[in-house]
């Protein structure tokens, strides 16, 4: 077939070949640029080669009509490609372009002009055309969108990459790429979020297409990623490289052909405010002063970090005076108070029995307190048995000390607190994952107070001691009765001497003559069947124990015969004296030591020879009685018998002591009447104990330790805990002295905190392509690459803009405050340490430039670290540097923010990249990268 248009069953057959006036213009999608050294960069931007053709035909009216019908009904204008069989019989796939013009040039002759466009596949370049290829590289940009859980890969051409992301085929929907400017501005206090715009085509034949995606889904929900790849590269060895990552921020559909997206740097997702605010919903009895504050998030060792009272009891006030007997009265706000609660106003405690609105019905003076009147404005607070203070919104490793604020001083109250670190097994129920302390009961503190009132103050001008001194009720009870001892304790037993007490029998005075044992030979008595003389001794019943009785007997033998004299004691003969010579007078003595216990002792003497007493005359007899032990009572010695003598009664003296014990009481009235007036001038120094503030409800401070102190660890913890970013890359190493010791105590965004922490350890923080980076800024730049040339325009101008860094960024005087006192609000007086540095040359050049607001370093506690940070910033910012903004080509596209480079086109100046962006190319514009370098 020749000279025909064919589309399916529809064919337009031309009568003759086209005139040869037309021409072809094959065109590649290649762009070129030039750098400041004159080097040409040529990038292969397309996947097709397009040939534009123009046919000029002389055709009949019927053919013209067929052609016009074909164009309208078959190819739908330019929409549907068709086959053109040329005059050589070669088939071309073409589409109409623009209009079909025709002119009648004769009878049934028409000249028609047809513009065609023929696309042919442009093969991928070889493997050698990668990033560093000055000419021939075929960069292609791919925008990955995740919408509705489906990944869409958009580009400005159709590209198949079989071994990347599971194999993709891009949708050629991108009409125009914007440019990416990514980085952090030089300003130390600002973070600039970059964005990127892209215009996409709506393909009405695709389902879904950009319009349905934009209108049917939340495109902002997932990250968008921009990749750079070079066609022809092995996607395994050289896969697409991510150059930008962000989130769709703006979506616009300006007409029915395009959708415009604005994609913002993902650091926007770090704009999340971090920290848990105390609120009454979660913590109904939280201290109102702490409501709205965030629970601290400490790192490292933090001293005297204020804890927040989450269970502090309700506190309100009494809006009107109440008497000591009022049982129902209003309070300013009864929210949270309930029946059964104990409240306290001044020193009185009350039991709530009813709550109606803001009116309480109470039982007054409970718990041993005294009902009293209270004045309007009296603070009323709920008494609780347990008070809970939260120390950290995370688990801690230690809470070494707890302080209570008493006036202006802190007092160690660790011993009365229970500390929960918040880690598993060491948590307080209801406060899992949080470090808390509890204080049992209501604690007051007595504090020694010394007050210097005045050096010369009249304490009491007139001191009235007592007009009447009444010592007692009028009766001085010295003792009603002197209590002597009631009984004189006479010694009941007269202690006689244990010795002998002789009681001499004397017949002449104690024995009647008739009882005299002197016998004339006639037995005058018979005793126990034995005749003889006997002596009877009768001992009184109270007589003591007798140890012996000695008798002395004198007898005279009346006859000459031998005679035996026997002494008998009862029926027992105890002595016998023989061979007594007649007429002889004989005296003998005997002693009885036994048989003398009875009350009656009979001793008698007789003639043992049987001659009877006629021959024995008892002349005299005496006896001595020896008692043993103590005797008492009276001893009556009597002699019965023939002698008939009665022992005389003997009176014994008794000696002892007597005393009287008792109370002496004096009853009377003592009073003193009168007045005492005195004026005292001088120094009065009251000193003593006074009741100070109650601890609970007041400030509680804690020393805390959390073993997360390395800068990288701290940043990583913030990212993973609060931002869902699980990876952090630290670039460079921090000096050994660098550690983070501080706390997040204010409600600010994660990005702000991260930036502040990074600043305080002389580092940059940024999100880069889905990963967080903490980049340590070295003292000396270590350059990684030299860029020999920047981009130049076609008329030879360098695209290299230089401007001096902002004047406000000059810093030549630093007073870096560190070691924060966390019990104080942030401000110049809340720091205990300072590091100072100045640069005289810079001051001379620019005047004194200080940024004190930047150098309140809450997270620095070490003097060494503070000095190092201070020196670093003075080194970098005392000299006003230049900002170099320039463009280059993709062979430098690997350079990133914070890389140190040498600007070969600008005097080999070394500098630090603080902005790195890129501009994807198009069919008319070459791809470039753009840097801002601080040098």
């Amino acid at each position, binding site marked *: 077939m020749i000279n025909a248009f064919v589309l399916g069953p529809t064919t337009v057959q031309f009568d003759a070949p086209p005139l*040869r*006036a*037309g*021409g*072809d*213009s*094959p*065109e*590649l*999608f*290649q*762009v*070129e640029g*030039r750098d*400041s050294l*004159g080097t*040409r960069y*040529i990038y*292969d931007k397309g996947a097709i*080669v397009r040939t534009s053709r123009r046919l000029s035909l002389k055709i009949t009216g019927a053919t013209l009509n067929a052609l016009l019908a074909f164009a309208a009904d078959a190819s739908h204008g330019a929409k549907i490609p068709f086959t053109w069989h040329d005059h050589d019989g070669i088939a071309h796939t073409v589409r109409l372009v623009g209009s079909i013009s025709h002119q009648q040039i004769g009878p049934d002759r028409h000249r028609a002009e047809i513009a065609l466009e023929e696309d042919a596949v*442009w*093969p991928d*370049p070889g493997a050698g*055309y990668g990033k560093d290829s000055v*000419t*021939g590289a075929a960069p292609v940009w791919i925008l990955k969108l995740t919408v509705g859980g489906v990944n869409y890969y958009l580009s400005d051409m159709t590209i198949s990459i079989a071994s990347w992301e599971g194999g993709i085929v891009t949708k050629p929907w991108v009409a125009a790429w914007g440019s990416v400017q990514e980085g952090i501005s030089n300003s130390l206090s600002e973070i600039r979020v970059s964005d990127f715009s892209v215009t996409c085509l709506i393909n009405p034949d695709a389902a879904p297409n950009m319009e349905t995606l934009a209108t049917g889904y939340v495109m902002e929900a997932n990250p968008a990623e921009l990749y750079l790849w070079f066609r022809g590269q092995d996607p395994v060895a050289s896969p697409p490289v991510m150059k930008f990552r962000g989130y769709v921020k703006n979506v616009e559909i300006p007409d029915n052909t395009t959708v415009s997206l604005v994609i913002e740097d993902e650091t926007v997702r770090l704009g999340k405010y971090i920290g848990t605010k105390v609120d009454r919903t979660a913590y109904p009895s939280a201290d109102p002063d702490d409501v709205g504050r965030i629970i601290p998030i400490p790192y490292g060792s933090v001293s005297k970090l204020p804890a927040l009272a989450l269970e502090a009891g309700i506190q309100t006030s009494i809006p009107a005076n109440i008497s000591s007997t009022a049982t129902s009265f209003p309070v300013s706000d009864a929210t949270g108070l309930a029946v059964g609660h104990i409240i306290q106003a001044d020193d009185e405690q009350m039991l709530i029995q009813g709550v109606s609105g803001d009116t309480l019905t109470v039982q007054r003076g409970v718990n041993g307190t005294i009902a009293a009147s209270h004045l309007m404005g009296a603070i009323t607070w709920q008494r609780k048995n347990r008070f809970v203070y939260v120390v950290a919104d995370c688990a801690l490793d230690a809470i070494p000390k707890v302080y209570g604020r008493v006036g202006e001083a802190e007092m160690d109250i660790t011993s009365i607190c229970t500390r929960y670190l918040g880690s598993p097994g060491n948590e307080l129920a209801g406060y899992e994952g949080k470090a808390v302390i509890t204080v049992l009961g209501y604690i007051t503190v007595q504090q020694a107070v010394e007050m210097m009132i005045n050096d010369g103050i009249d304490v009491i001008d007139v001191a009235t001691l007592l007009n009447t001194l009444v010592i007692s009720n009028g009766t001085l009870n010295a003792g009603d009765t002197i209590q002597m001892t009631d009984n004189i304790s006479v010694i009941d037993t007269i202690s006689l001497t244990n010795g002998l007490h002789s009681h001499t029998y004397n017949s002449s005075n104690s024995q009647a003559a008739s009882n005299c044992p002197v016998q004339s030979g006639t037995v005058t008595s018979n005793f126990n069947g034995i005749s003889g003389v006997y002596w009877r001794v009768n001992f009184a019943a109270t007589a003591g124990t007798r140890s012996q009785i000695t008798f002395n007997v004198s007898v005279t033998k009346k006859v000459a015969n031998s005679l035996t004299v026997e002494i008998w004691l009862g029926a027992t003969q105890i002595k016998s004296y023989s061979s007594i010579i007649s007429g002889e007078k004989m005296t003998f003595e005997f002693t009885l030591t036994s048989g003398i216990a009875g009350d009656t002792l009979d001793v008698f003497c007789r003639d043992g020879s049987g001659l009877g007493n006629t021959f024995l005359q008892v002349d005299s007899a005496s006896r001595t009685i020896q008692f043993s032990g103590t005797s008492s009572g009276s001893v009556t010695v009597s002699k019965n018998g023939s002698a008939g003598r009665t022992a005389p009664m003997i009176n014994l003296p008794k000696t002892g002591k007597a005393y009287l014990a008792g109370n002496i009481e004096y009853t009377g009235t003592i009073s003193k009447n009168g007045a005492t007036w005195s004026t005292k001038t001088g120094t009065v120094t009251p000193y003593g104990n006074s009741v100070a503030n109650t601890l609970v409800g007041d400030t509680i401070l804690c020393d805390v330790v959390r073993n997360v102190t390395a800068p990288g660890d701290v940043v990583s913890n913030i990212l993973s805990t609060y931002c869902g970013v699980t990876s952090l890359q630290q670039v460079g190493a921090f000096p050994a002295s660098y550690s983070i010791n501080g706390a997040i105590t204010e409600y600010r965004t994660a990005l702000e905190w991260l930036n502040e922490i990074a600043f305080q350890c002389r580092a940059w923080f940024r999100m880069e392509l889905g990963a967080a980076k903490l980049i340590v800024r070295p003292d000396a730049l270590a350059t990684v690459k030299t860029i020999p040339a920047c981009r*130049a325009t*076609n*008329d*030879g*101008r360098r695209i290299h803009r230089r401007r001096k860094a902002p004047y406000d960024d000059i810093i030549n005087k630093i007073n870096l405050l560190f070691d924060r006192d966390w019990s104080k609000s942030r401000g110049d007086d809340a720091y205990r340490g300072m590091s100072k540095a100045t640069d005289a040359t810079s001051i001379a050049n620019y005047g004194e430039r200080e940024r004190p607001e930047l150098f309140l370093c809450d997270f620095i506690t070490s003097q060494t670290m503070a000095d190092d940070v201070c020196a670093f910033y003075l080194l970098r910012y005392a000299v006003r540097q230049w900002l170099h903004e320039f463009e280059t080509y993709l062979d430098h596209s690997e350079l990133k923010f914070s890389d140190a480079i040498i600007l070969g086109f600008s005097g080999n100046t070394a500098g630090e990249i603080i902005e790195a962006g890129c501009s994807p190319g198009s069919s008319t514009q070459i791809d470039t990268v753009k840097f801002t370098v601080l040098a």
Partner: protein
Amino acid sequence: MGDTGYIESQLNYVEDGYIGLPGSPVAFLLGATDALYFGRSPDRHGKSLAFIQARAESAAAEPIIHDYLAKDTIVDLAWSNMSRFDLDRLLSWWRTVARGMAMAFDYIDINGIRATVQFASPRLPEIRERTYDSYEVKVSLRVM
């Protein structure tokens, strides 16, 4: 057969004092294997020299001109009667060997002078069929 461009072109050679012979080995060469010799010689090429040079003017139009950054020599080749065979080979060379502007190659002109060149534009300026097996073709080369 009113189109006489081919004949006119041949006459131009004479009029312009062409000293070579038709069919002189005008060629594109790249490496040892890729070579494109044209069966029909082009017209005598035209050359231009362009300077990449920043130029500024004062408000009163007094110029301040920097030294040139680079200078480009452009060779304009034009065939008035390229055969279809040569055209197809040229297009193939352009696409697959030179890859448009990407690759540099050697150009041997009708005088036998060799120069390293690139295609100067992503577009082949014009291909027009004048008569059977005769095409007007214009090509711009940038001398490296």
